[in-house]
């Protein structure tokens, strides 16, 4: 058997694939953060809590209303996205003129409230969520057995990420969005309702988080703390990729997932730290991040 650093190539291929699966979650979450930061200039700390809400809404739909995974994959992002729009209309819009820190504080407070509410209703042990029938089972790839559901996670996330990138960077709607944040008064003069556009953008970013939450429900523990476990890593991904860079967050998310996967083989104890070590190095060499542009 061929080996690399004493580990069979097959095993490494397996870890590479697992890294991509985790990277898909990072990519989707950091993409939502990047969209919100890039277009609204808000550091959305509530992203983890909204991701958790996505998973919980999926669970609620299944256990209270009997709605299956596929229905919730559409409904949960819509519901949580609508909730995001309410937050934006009621609270966030008052802070755009102030420093970034106020948005961060507001969303941090929201995180504590949302998590606290779910914790007091559902406890912390988490709720079981079955893998949808069509995706149970696993495929033997020769070098590893890949659960079908994980393959679906990678596919779904890549499609969603690319579609988002395309809409924002390559369509007229995306151009309006970008222009709206650059110079809202001028865009308004063209007859575009900028406040509504911003609300919808925030709602979309939030819906992305909820979508990731639904994807995560069958593989991770659906618990009120699931978001806070992930959000710090995702922030690190955004910082490494460059704040607000759409493509940067997708590529970095996937890349860091892979690096973390390999760390789990060669030095398991460091696997929760490696992302932050990379962040420190990147910040020292390129303060704006790998794909960011210095302003």
């Amino acid at each position, binding site marked *: 058997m061929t080996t690399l650093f004493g580990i069979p190539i097959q095993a490494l291929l397996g870890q590479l694939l*697992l890294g991509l699966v*985790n990277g898909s979650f990072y990519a989707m979450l950091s993409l939502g953060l990047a969209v919100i930061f890039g277009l609204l200039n808000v550091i959305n700390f509530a992203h983890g809590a909204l991701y958790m809400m996505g998973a919980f809404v999926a669970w609620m739909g299944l256990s209270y209303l009997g709605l299956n995974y596929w229905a919730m994959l559409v409904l949960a992002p819509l519901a949580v996205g609508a909730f995001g729009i309410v937050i934006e209309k009621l609270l966030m819009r008052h802070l755009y003129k102030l420093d970034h820190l106020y948005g961060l504080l507001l969303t941090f407070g929201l995180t504590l409230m949302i998590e606290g509410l779910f914790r007091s209703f559902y406890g912390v042990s988490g709720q079981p969520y079955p893998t949808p029938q069509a995706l149970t089972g696993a495929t033997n790839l020769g070098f590893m057995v890949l659960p079908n559901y994980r393959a679906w996670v990678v596919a779904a996330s890549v499609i969603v990420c690319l579609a988002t990138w395309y809409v924002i960077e390559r369509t007229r709607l995306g151009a309006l969005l970008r222009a709206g944040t650059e110079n809202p008064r001028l865009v308004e003069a063209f007859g575009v309702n900028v406040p509504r556009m911003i609300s919808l953008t925030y709602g979309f970013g939030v819906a992305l988080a909820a979508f990731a939450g639904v994807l995560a429900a069958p593989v991770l523990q659906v618990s009120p703390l699931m978001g806070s476990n992930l959000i710090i890593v995702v922030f690190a991904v955004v910082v490494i990729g460059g704040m607000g860079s759409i493509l940067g967050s997708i590529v970095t998310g996937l890349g860091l997932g892979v690096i973390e996967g390999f760390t789990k083989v060669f030095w398991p104890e460091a696997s929760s730290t490696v992302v932050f070590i990379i962040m420190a190095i990147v910040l020292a060499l390129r303060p704006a991040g790998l794909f960011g542009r210095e302003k």
Partner: protein
Amino acid sequence: MKLHTITAALALAGLGVAGLPAQAQGISDDVIRIGFITDMSGVYSDIDGKAGLQAIQMAIDDAGGAIDGKKIEVISADHQNKADVASARAREWFDQQKVDLLIGGTNSGTSLAMAAVAAEKKRPFISIGAGASDLTNEQCAPYTVHYAYDTIALARGTGSAVVKDGGKSWFFLTADYAFGHALERDTIEVVKASGGEIKGTVRAPLSTTDFSSFLLQAQASGAQILGLANAGGDTINSIKAANEFGVTATMKMAGLLVFINDIHSLGLQATQGMYLTDSWYWDQSDQARAWSKKFESKVNRKPSSLQAADYSAVAFYLKGVKAAGTDDPDAIMKWMKSNKVNDFYTKDGYVREDGMMIHDMYLMQVKTPKESKAPWDYYKVVATLPGEKVYNTLEESTCPLVRK
């Protein structure tokens, strides 16, 4: 000679001063105050937490809410899984709130910190939710009682049962912190002593979300048994991933610290057939069922072993206060170390000189979805593990208080 006489006289006088009030002491400050410090909001709050507080309140109510006309009170606090928060609060309570008994909930780090404060203040401390065997070994103290379970009992219970069942080769998935290391160490010892072998270990950082990579490593090792030396959310996530990646098809899982709430969260499909050791199960006897029914009417779910132990420990203490007619710490410690615990939680349990409450533990196997008839009907009690065998012996104890 003269100096000796004076010294002797002073010593006698001292004894008299110390001895007299003990007789007439009764209840200090006219209230019996119990302090309860546990994880109220974090990863361990389901297995103890607010429902544990409810269990303590039930014990107080069942004791009539007062002893000899002196009110019994409970105060509680959240230690947020931080040892410094726990010890600062314990200190404040002993000094200012005149707490007569301190109960320590989940998390070994916080319990070790509180035990030190209680020893310094010379007040009784009963640790319930903590697992570290250090509480009654290296770090034992005259005022500490370790009530529900410890890592040695878990290791001996599950470890030896699994090896006996044919699970000879093990791979450990260990949480990378003190508790995980202790559990791994104690279990490896048991596995080797019973003739098993260790194929490898991997140490995953605490609160890892994705365990699939570690599980592939476990699978590649070719071991028969996957020993889970972790707790709470880590256990849940590793079991979930083990099922997904088909690890359970080739390996059997042994949960070294699993509570019924974890099983409830995972569902029987994912956990069926798993062995685990616990101190108590709500369906183990008529008495246990009767108490659980009362508990469920207040909390809306079945009690964990820790919540049952919360009740049992407080009831035991209050019985002591009533019998001794005082809440004087030394008198109560003496009473607790010379009387047996007999209630729905355990039969003939006794507190040893090192502070360990020796009582029977149970080896459980998780039922299959077919075998389970009702919600929370999760375990088959496979074996009763006699307390004398499952805990370490006084000869093995490294507690300095033990006279050998």
